[in-house]
């Protein structure tokens, strides 16, 4: 909740250019945004297509290995 008061202490209610400059930083904003929105990598077991693809490759490699042994 806020309440208005009369500025009797003569506090500066308009920022100086130096104050504005101090807070202006697009690279920080971009970094914070990336940090906030970047999703973690999808685990393998949650990606059925990738899981099947790797499984097929593993089976082929296994069969090739067994074929070589025989």
């Amino acid at each position: 909740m806020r309440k208005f008061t009369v500025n009797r202490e003569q506090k500066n209610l308009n920022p100086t250019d130096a104050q504005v400059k101090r807070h202006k930083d697009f690279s920080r904003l971009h970094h914070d945004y990336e940090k906030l929105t970047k999703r973690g990598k999808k685990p393998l077991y949650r990606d059925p297509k990738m899981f099947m693809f790797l499984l097929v490759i593993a089976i082929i490699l296994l069969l090739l290995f067994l074929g070589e042994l025989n």
Partner: protein
Amino acid sequence: MSRKEHSKQLSESEIIALAKTDQKYFGSLYDHYFDPIFRFVFKRLGGDEETAGDLTQQTFMKAMANMSKYEDRGFPFSSWLYRIAQNEVSMFFRQQSKVYSVAIDESRIQEFAQEADIFSSHMSMEDQDKLVEMLNGLNESELELIELRFFQEMSFKEIAEIYSVSEATAKMRTYRILERINKQWKNEE
């Protein structure tokens, strides 16, 4: 050619369109609008620099996240940013457990009193305090309107753009509040 140099050759609407798909272009909008938004937030907070810095960054963060949803409805892009900033500050006030004091210059109160037809000459300190108390009794949406008009010194056109209403509506809402304050003041005299 860097994005910054490229942005300089584009119109604002072109930059906005590019910023919807490439966040780096949002930097040009940030550079252009940071100053007025920071000043707006700083004033609304009564001169609290650190909080103004945080809330301004939050404002641009939200704008960046919602760029894809932004639609040009004939109002300037700045009015969209002011609306986000306005909401951020209001949310900040609501979240405060203690009463947050916002200082207003005496000259602004004096101007408000003249507009409300309460005083035409210089007001005493007691009268200023009495008027500020009346303002504190207004509801949040009424206070926001008074703030924009008298303490942020915005034109009715700018206020109308922030609220996406007509200028006549912004004027009518403001003068209704002034009339009520005027009646209340006369009743208490």
